[in-house]
């Protein structure tokens, strides 16, 4: 059977398998975390400068929108961390079979979402 050529990868027509979803989320969260570096440095610097700045950040934490934003950032960090740990395991040839790779992808989603929820509960 001749396969239809040319091949193409139309992102809107291919169904992304779960490990692929984990992979692209790893990339998107990585890019997002890169963009957040100056914000984190700014917050660290200001919080150490004056008690007033520290107090104003603590007040800001009381705002629900800021909390939601923080939970979003925590998810990005935790997803990137969990997907990264999965990546290291794959590098060591653990879980490279299809079933194991799918299972570990579910585990990455579940653990990162669950730990984000724990974080959210702690700061709420």
């Amino acid at each position, binding site marked *: 059977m001749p396969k239809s050529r040319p091949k193409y990868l139309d992102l809107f027509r291919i169904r992304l398998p779960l490990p692929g979803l984990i992979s692209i989320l790893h990339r998107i969260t*990585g*890019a997002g975390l*890169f963009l957040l570096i100056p914000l984190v440095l700014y917050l660290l610097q200001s919080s*150490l400068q004056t008690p007033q700045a520290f107090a104003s950040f603590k007040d800001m934490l009381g705002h629900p929108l800021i909390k939601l934003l923080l939970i979003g950032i925590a998810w990005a960090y935790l997803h990137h*961390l969990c997907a990264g*740990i999965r990546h*290291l395991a794959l590098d060591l040839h653990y879980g490279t079979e299809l079933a194991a790779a799918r299972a570990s992808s579910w585990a990455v989603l579940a653990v990162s979402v669950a730990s984000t929820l724990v974080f959210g509960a702690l700061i709420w």
Partner: protein
Amino acid sequence: MVKREVIGAHYGLRDWLAQRITAVVMGVYTLMMLGVLASTPRLDYWSWKTLWELPVMRYATMLFLLSLLLHAWIGVRNIFMDYIKDPGLRLTLYVLVIGALVGYLIWSVQILWGL
């Protein structure tokens, strides 16, 4: 004779390894920080400031930030390699990202050692 074209700068393996070593460093630091925050029940300005005056905190954070900046460079560069087709634009973006990361490095030292 086989005509071979030599391409690439052969930094693939080095960067691959660096990406993983920096990842492990940041993972360990994350666990350490969770422990530190968990053992600080009431966080006010003075306990926060005292915490960051500890040399171990400064050096561990500096190591974390160095890892982060190298990790970010390799990651962002890979993203640009995949999606930015125009060499001129890609090079411009590389320069901007390197500039930003070097700036963050200097800024980090200023924050941690209060220069």
